[in-house]
């Protein structure tokens, strides 16, 4: 594999990770909505992400567009293979995205409730579809020549349903940790209770998916349980266990409202590393490697020049936008 292919694999992995944690917490707000029926709570929950959700979702476009650009073969195999979940995700994101605006424009309680419903359903379905997509990629995609060769329901297995549920739980957990950071008073106490429940569900999901994954493909199994690989990879589950303890402690003790969110990000980071351990060096396990799917060097180089300059700038102004809206939410302030 060339260095350029390696760099692009890392850039894309970074983009997908940033997407997962950023849109993860704002999709999580929608996942948590059913537990907060009060209008004033829902208003402030939505306002806590209103200025940033659009930027968060842009990382999904970078993930998709980047895959198209850097690994066009992978893009053109994965998307038809995951056709129904991808379409469901896109439609769900429509409902959820417009709910940010429409919810405030509805003039009747019924109208507002309908957009609340769209926000909930859109968030849950988008998260579930992303989890399905992750699971379907891990369990392998049938390829013939340069095209997807399976049927249009191949993605649906118990394993993908499990990974779908795990991602819904995980995003709900991220959302709860975010709200714990942004809210105060009684609603924050409520959020912390939810965070504990979603945290337990998330860790259970991580454990279940992690235990099932090595049995999907022999290559995963030897990666995790082979000798001497086990020496290199065992710190990952150990770190997950330690983080879980830290998270539990931070959610039962008061103060340090930022800590659960930061630890939750670290937990997602570790899952991501674990995923990389399993999949490497494939982009579509077990048929297409990163090297096979890579765009020609002239494409990689042309993009790298821009990415090297632009991604740091994007991170800087994104951080600035978060900084502008930092701190606890003022219930008086809002939009519309």
């Amino acid at each position, binding site marked *: 594999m060339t260095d350029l292919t390696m760099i692009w694999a890392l850039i894309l992995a970074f983009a997908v990770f940033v997407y997962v944690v950023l849109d993860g917490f704002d999709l999580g707000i929608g996942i948590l909505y059913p537990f907060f029926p009060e209008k004033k709570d829902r208003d402030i929950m939505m306002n806590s992400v209103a200025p940033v959700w659009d930027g968060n979702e842009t990382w999904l*476009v970078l993930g998709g567009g980047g895959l*198209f650009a850097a690994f066009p073969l992978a893009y053109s195999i994965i998307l038809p293979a995951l056709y129904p979940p991808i379409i469901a995700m896109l439609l769900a994101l429509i409902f959820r995205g417009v709910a940010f*605006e429409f919810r405030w424009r509805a003039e009747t309680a019924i109208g507002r409730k309908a957009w609340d419903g769209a926000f909930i359903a859109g968030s849950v379905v988008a998260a579930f579809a992303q989890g399905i997509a992750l699971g379907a990629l891990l369990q392998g995609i049938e390829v013939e020549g340069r095209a997807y060769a399976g049927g249009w329901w191949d993605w649906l297995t118990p394993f993908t349903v499990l990974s779908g549920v795990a991602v819904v739980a995980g995003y709900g957990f991220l959302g709860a940790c975010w709200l714990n950071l942004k809210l105060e008073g009684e609603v924050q106490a409520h959020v912390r209770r939810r965070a504990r429940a979603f945290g337990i569900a998330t860790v259970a999901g991580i454990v279940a998916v992690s235990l099932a994954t090595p049995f999907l493909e022999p290559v995963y199994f030897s990666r995790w349980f082979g000798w001497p690989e086990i020496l290199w990879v065992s710190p990952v589950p150990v770190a997950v266990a330690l983080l879980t303890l830290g998270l539990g402690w931070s959610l039962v003790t008061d103060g340090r409202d930022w800590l659960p969110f930061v630890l939750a990000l670290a937990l997602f980071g570790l899952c991501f590393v674990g995923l990389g351990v399993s999949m490497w060096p494939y982009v579509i396990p077990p048929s297409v490697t990163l090297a096979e799917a890579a765009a020609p060097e002239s494409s990689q180089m042309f993009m790298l020049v821009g990415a090297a300059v632009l991604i740091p700038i994007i991170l800087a*102004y994104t951080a600035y936008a978060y900084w502008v809206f930092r701190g606890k939410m003022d219930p008086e302030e809002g939009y519309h």
Partner: protein
Amino acid sequence: METFLGMDAVLLARIQFAFTVAFHFIFPAFSIGLASYLAVLNGLWLWTKDEVYLRLFRFWVKIFAISFAMGVVSGIVMSYQFGTNWSVFSDRTGPVLGPLMAYEVLTAFFLEAGFLGIMLFGRSRVGPGLHMFATAMVAVGTAISATWILSVNSWMHTPQGYSINDVGQFVPEDWWAIVFNPSFPYRLAHTLTAAYLTTAFIVGGVGAWHLLRGRSRNPAVRTMVSMALWMIAVTAPLQIVLGHEHGLNTYEYQPTKVLAMEGHFESHEDGIPLILFGIPDQEAGVMRYEVSIPRIGGPILEKGWDAQMDGLDTVPDELEPPVGIVFFAFRIMVGIGFLMLGLGLWGLWARWRGHLYEARWLHRAQVLMAPSGLVAVIAGWITTEVGRQPYVVYGEMLTAEAASPLGAQAVAASLVAFVVIYFLVFGAGVLYILKLMSHEPKPDEKGESAEPGPIRTAGTTPAQQTRKVQGA
């Protein structure tokens, strides 16, 4: 072959792409112009301190937020649809088009999204200077976005700067030639101007409607009507010139498309007529009920009065685009273009006579033509996209060989879902926009962060609210 209602998977995928892209483009066509208008309004407010501009900014920024959100979510669909429905196209063109789209994300989408939050919610948090900067960045972002995606689209019309490797992929050889392909500058200028015209007609139409309804003396209403009519007076004639230049460029690189646009089934030996109207009969290869002016078609294409031209009869049938669609879509676009020019002149006349705000027939025409830009834009895209058929990459790759290996059932199911959900969701959005437009911009117009959502609808108005209606 598996079909759905007699349509195969490729046709269904084409319908799906046409539907989703046409729906999507309605929103950017409006918000590209509106973003710039908002930047101008905010700049004028900071410069003159005339409250009317702030009032207008606050009126339009709420409409912008809705339109922009709909543009974003319908745009994400587009960025994945290349892969879901057109995987062979993606595999083969990815090395050339992927990087251009990646640049669109990196230079435009992040810029717009990053600063949109500050533009909508941040005026009191960052101060007027940075808020102005954020507003300008959103406007710049929309234009940069259009630039990249039009470069992508134009390359598919006039591809160059590539070689083809042994697995059939287009491999970039000369990025300059790819980005600045021959039709790109023309398409960019024509499309951006169309966006500004579209917005001017909507802004002016809304203002005219308020003038008609209330004989409004509201200075904000008058200002938007006046600004919009100036914009139309300048851009409508400019657009006709740009459209003509774009047409000449198309005639050079995609002559078949121009033959379909102008309805030239037959070759002409001595002078090219200008066909004004007719009913194309592609099967028979003739124009029925033709109304045409002899000879002036030559000079329009920068040829002589007695020029010779090869018609569609010299093109193999399987390489002809569907003539009827192209012919009529082109006429709709051009017809609207000239009506726009007429309205621009009418506005100048009313202004010169000093009755711009009392000219009721002018205002009625403005209201009637408020959505005309959107219609023209869609008609224009139909002209150019249908006109390059049967190719998806002109001269190199057929549309029929670009689709994903999907069954017709799968594509049909997703098409039905898109149609139902788009009409439902975006229909609601358009209603909300119309509702916002139906209120005059009031002196105490609530704007960005001035209107606390929780409090307003709770029915109580605490003292803080008045304090929070800040000036800048």
